[in-house]
């Protein structure tokens, strides 16, 4: 009788990069496979085991009517359902369609738009089903993925920081790229997790991990203005892999400040 806990990996609209992170833990992969039964992971194996599953990792966003139904089936067979990566937690870069005309988008890419079945929006998994934990990143960080899987299997809360990238720069001793080089950086409003990767390469953070807890966007706006980037420029910089999460964050902040 198989007694190991079961892990399933599911894909929705995405680039496969976050589930690839599970195969990228080369030194630990076979050890994980000894302790966990990888019961459904089509990118890695043709063998599948029937659910229910102890932990489901979900990659990708909901962009088609079929996906909106399939995620409910995944929820129904999962004890814990956790989403991995910016597509699953925020809708991904493909959520830019939420602010455009989908018919224009289809016509721009396909000669026969009538063959295409798509939703007008790309939305995070949590808009459709209950999610037990969201792991941010475009792509996710594989050390955080290992922590998440271990925590879920031990049925404890994962230890994942929600502070900003600035804290990671300080702890790595990386000089602030805005202060010392005048490079616009999204680090102050972006959640940690990458290890302050871009500043370590003399580049401003571009927001792969989405909004940090209580980001001060107004303060960032004035910083960027002083560096010669107008509000439109900042909005464009925020409108990438986590566009939907930053927009919702802004709406919540506006509602909180609105006396009505």
């Amino acid at each position, binding site marked *: 009788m198989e007694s190991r806990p079961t892990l399933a990996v599911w894909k929705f609209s995405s680039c496969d990069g976050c589930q690839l992170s599970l195969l990228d833990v080369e030194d630990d992969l076979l050890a994980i496979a000894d302790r966990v039964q990888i019961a459904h992971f089509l990118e*890695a194996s043709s063998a599948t085991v029937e659910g229910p599953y102890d932990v489901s990792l979900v990659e990708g966003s909901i962009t088609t009517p079929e996906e909106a139904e399939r995620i409910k089936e995944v929820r129904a067979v999962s004890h814990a359902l956790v989403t991995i990566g910016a597509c699953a937690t925020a809708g991904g870069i493909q959520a830019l369609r939420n602010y455009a005309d989908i018919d224009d988008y289809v016509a721009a890419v396909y000669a*026969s738009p009538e063959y295409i079945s798509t939703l007008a929006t790309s939305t995070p998994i949590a808009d459709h089903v209950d999610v037990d934990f969201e792991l941010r990143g475009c792509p996710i960080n594989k050390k955080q993925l290992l922590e998440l899987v271990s925590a879920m299997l031990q049925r404890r809360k994962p230890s994942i920081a929600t502070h900003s990238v600035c804290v990671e720069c300080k702890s790595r001793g990386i000089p602030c790229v805005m202060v010392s080089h005048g490079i616009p950086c999204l680090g102050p409003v972006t959640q940690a997790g990458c290890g302050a990767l871009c500043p370590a390469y003399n580049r401003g953070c571009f927001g*792969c991990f989405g909004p940090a807890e209580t980001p001060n966007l107004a303060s960032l706006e004035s910083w960027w203005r002083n560096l010669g980037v107008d509000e439109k420029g900042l909005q464009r910089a925020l409108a990438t892999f986590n566009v939907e999460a930053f927009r919702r964050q802004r709406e919540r902040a506006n509602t909180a400040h609105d006396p009505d």
Partner: protein
Amino acid sequence: MSEPTRRTIQTDYLARVEGEGAMSVRLVDGKVDEVELRIFEPPRFFEALLRGRSFLEAPDITSRICGICPVAYQMSAINAMEDLCGVEVSEPIRLLRRLLYCGEWIESHALHVYMLHAPDFLGYDGAVEMAREHPDVVQRGLQLKKTGNELMIVVGGREIHPVNVKVGGFYRAPTRGELQTLVQPLERAREAAVETVRWTAGFDFPERAVDCELVALAAPDAYAIEQGRVVSDHGLDIGVQEYNDNFYEEHVARSNALHSRRTDGSTYLCGPLARYALSADRLSPLAREVAAEVGLEVPCRDAFRSIVVRSVELVYACDEALRIIDEYEEPDAPAAEVEPRAGVGHGATEAPRGLLYHRYELDSEGTILDAKIVPPTSQNQLAIEEDLRQVVDRYHDLADDELKHVCEQAIRNFDPCISCATHFLDLEIVRE
């Protein structure tokens, strides 16, 4: 007159490919009537969402098309933008790009050879299952893959969606010392790659051949990776700027992927078989020696043997990375200055799966007005279907389960990347 016997064989989700697709085969009286690959990976509309973005954003945005070959997308986008803006980068920057790309070839080929493809030949469902009986072999593959990833981390900042590349060059050029840390792992990886060639060459192969035109980039003095002319074994030899005049895409109802054809409507194939056929003489001496040792002929038209060709390319990528590191001189500036121009630019590179073409139209501010991206799996889709038809013709007397397995294997021979091609697999075999 007897009733025709009809058989339908179907796979709903093809495993061990990147992305989602299905296949169906219809046989009437044991003859193949119809073969279809259906790509139902949902469209993400990259070419549309790029409109209105800055030309500088294209490498980071297009890398998100594929988590397995992000560097390919970054490099093709960069080539197109630099073509358009008239930028020539210094030799150290070109070599650093080639080095980063070697990392992606090592990572992607090791993933495909060991985790996705070899289990087919040895009768396992996947690498984890294979590891129970062949732990040392799977560990070798994982170490190779890890070395490719380490190379991408040092040069690109991270292995998936690297952060250090930009139009004009890099944000920060690695130091000689940083690259030296890669020498020992790469030397071990090169030995593992040589063992990989010997291991895969010993698999059982059905003797078969694809007969379509083979298309790849080629360069005069090196095995083409990050740049080259578009050439074929039928005499095509054009600059990347002429790509659109020689190939076109069509949209068919069954698939969210566009199908590419030559302008005369014919089918062609890109990827390892094409590269090896056109440029094997430009591989490193060690890669050529190992290929000769295992009897890998030039050209190799057997898609099942693509696993051996990929393994030879693994040897080459390790060898080439070591050569670049050995000769590396830090560039004076990590990037060239780039000023946008209005116009149209073209870029193509050799993704691990084959030719990847980008075309952009910019205004004078550098805003993207139009984008066209043709990934290798779109280009290979017709060739895969034609090959599948021949495989079914040859193996139609197998039981459905066995036939289905052979068909799935035939598809995986081409290392289809469905996430990329959407604009790919269920396997369905219908016998009528």
